[in-house]
């Protein structure tokens, strides 16, 4: 038995007295609240070294994790346009400019070709940091071009989804990207070229209801949020609490919509194994 007893739980320091740590040095886990260094995090495949929480990462990180070192980015020239002059609280143009400046990216998806254990692969990976990873005309077009490239050169395709869904600021144009990407995928299937879909946290809305669910093989990272409607919308509609593991990767695997769940540490090897089974 100790001499002292803790009377108050949790952090007592007022926000104004908080000491700021320099950005990019430490990582505080969103889930277990434990701290580790960025170096440790990176070495651990961007997973929390304490609780294995898979941190949301960007397209470049995935390219680095999966490809054999070198890869070549494709279709980098495309830019979104504000064809509707869409203004809500902020004009769409401003949102795009902010996204360019904040992320250094040019869109919510990047496409690259490279090799995995010497087998060629094209990866289209989404970035959630770019307007919520939303799908507009450019995302649809880049996927369509990636599919055409895979078809013409007979290379398997991997799409890594990380998105809130369709981009509202392009209205029906965004909606039609669901039809466009699915129609293009049907051509890929006809040419017997495998398409792998990796769903990561989060994958919802129009993207789930089009290309993300259409993989010859669908797989996900652990504990990712995956669904059609967002949990808040469902809760408001049915006015009931949602089950504990609702809309997680594990939930989808149990209900038959995923082939398997893969830890990010094993991602590269698993993809390499898959590629070895398909003689393209």
């Amino acid at each position, binding site marked *: 038995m100790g001499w002292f007893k803790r009377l108050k739980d949790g952090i007592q320091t007022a926000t104004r007295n908080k000491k700021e740590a320099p950005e990019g040095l430490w990582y505080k886990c969103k889930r277990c609240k434990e701290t580790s260094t960025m170096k440790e995090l990176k070495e651990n495949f961007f997973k929390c070294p304490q609780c294995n929480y898979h941190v949301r990462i960007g397209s470049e990180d995935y390219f680095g994790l999966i490809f054999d070192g070198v890869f070549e980015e494709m279709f980098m020239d495309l830019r979104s346009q504000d064809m509707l002059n869409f203004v809500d*609280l902020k004009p769409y143009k401003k949102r795009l400019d902010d996204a360019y400046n904040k992320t250094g990216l040019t869109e919510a998806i990047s496409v690259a070709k490279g090799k995995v254990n010497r087998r060629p692969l094209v990866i289209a990976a989404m970035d959630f940091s770019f307007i919520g990873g939303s799908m507009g005309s450019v995302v649809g077009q880049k996927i369509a071009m990636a599919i055409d490239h895979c078809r013409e050169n007979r290379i398997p395709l991997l799409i890594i989804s990380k998105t809130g869904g369709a981009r509202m600021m392009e209205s029906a144009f965004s909606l*039609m990207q669901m039809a466009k990407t699915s129609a293009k995928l049907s051509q890929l299937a006809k040419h017997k070229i495998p398409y792998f879909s990796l769903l990561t946290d989060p994958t919802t809305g129009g993207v789930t209801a089009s290309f993300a669910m259409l993989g010859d093989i669908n797989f996900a990272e652990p504990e990712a949020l995956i669904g059609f409607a967002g949990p808040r919308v469902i809760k408001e509609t049915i006015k009931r609490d949602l089950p504990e593991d609702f809309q997680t990767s594990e939930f989808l695997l149990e209900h038959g919509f995923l082939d398997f769940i893969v830890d990010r540490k094993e991602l590269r090897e698993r993809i390499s194994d898959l590629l070895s089974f398909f003689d393209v």
Partner: protein
Amino acid sequence: MVFLDFEKPLEKLYEQLEKLKQVGEEGIVDVSETVKELENKIKNTRKEIYSNLTGWQKVQLSRHPERPYTLYYIREMSRKFVELHGDRCFKDDKAIVGGLANLDGQTVMIIGHQKGVNTKMRQYRNFGMANPEGYRKALRLMKMAERFDIPVACLIDTPGAYPGIEAEERGQAEAIARNLLEMAQLKVPIVCVVIGEGASGGAIGIGLGDRVYMMENTWYSVISPESCSSILWHSWDYKEQAAEALKLTPDHMLEFGLIDDIIKEPLGGAHTAPEEMAKLLKRQIKKAISELQEMSVEDRIEARINKYAVMGVYGTAEEDSLMTEKENQ
């Protein structure tokens, strides 16, 4: 009669007309001239109101409680109709109906969202919000139609696919995605018509076709104006602005090249003359099917996919920097 808020001037005129007719029935005064005048006035007022409807007003009209729904159109267009039920996996969804119909000698598999005509039926039809089994039933019927070389017509009228626990468990997203993939390759002609609300994934889940039409007082968008307002404006009060911003009316959709044509509605909307509307709908579906039947299967599928492949507006980095330069000058 149900009047929408922007139809208030009409409501007053109708009230006057009613009173006038009562006076006329008493037979003391001859009111026939005044009745005629008033009827003319109603016609002109209606024309005026309906010649410049806003996006939001079209949304309201698309939800008009007296608006005809899929089953009405099918029965009006086809003397014979056999409704087919069930997805053969789980159950029969009441929010999507379908079956074999005959349009003046042409057998057509007609599939569509179905809303209820009164409170009880609206609940029974889940307000036209389908579950995965609805989309799977639609796909089953389409694949059957394909086997027997029967063209498919889809009538779209939904506030969205149902957002519920069971819908997610049974794969709402997968069901819609699967339909898109399969419809892209379906060997028979597909004609889609938005007859009311065209909300997002729930609409496009039966909406990929060789021809896509919209009736005049309908809308098609990636999200309903209400939800858009709630997400982007953080409030439910901006639905009118959202409806404008989304450019969801048939005129815009045609201008963007996202639909193939607009089907005119009788003045005052489809509900004011439903029989006439059904005739116009039938004419358009039949015309499209006979045009599409001229093509070979391969050509038709290729044209269908190419049609969607060009949808989208984007520029290049170079154009973007040129634009910025121009703006700075």
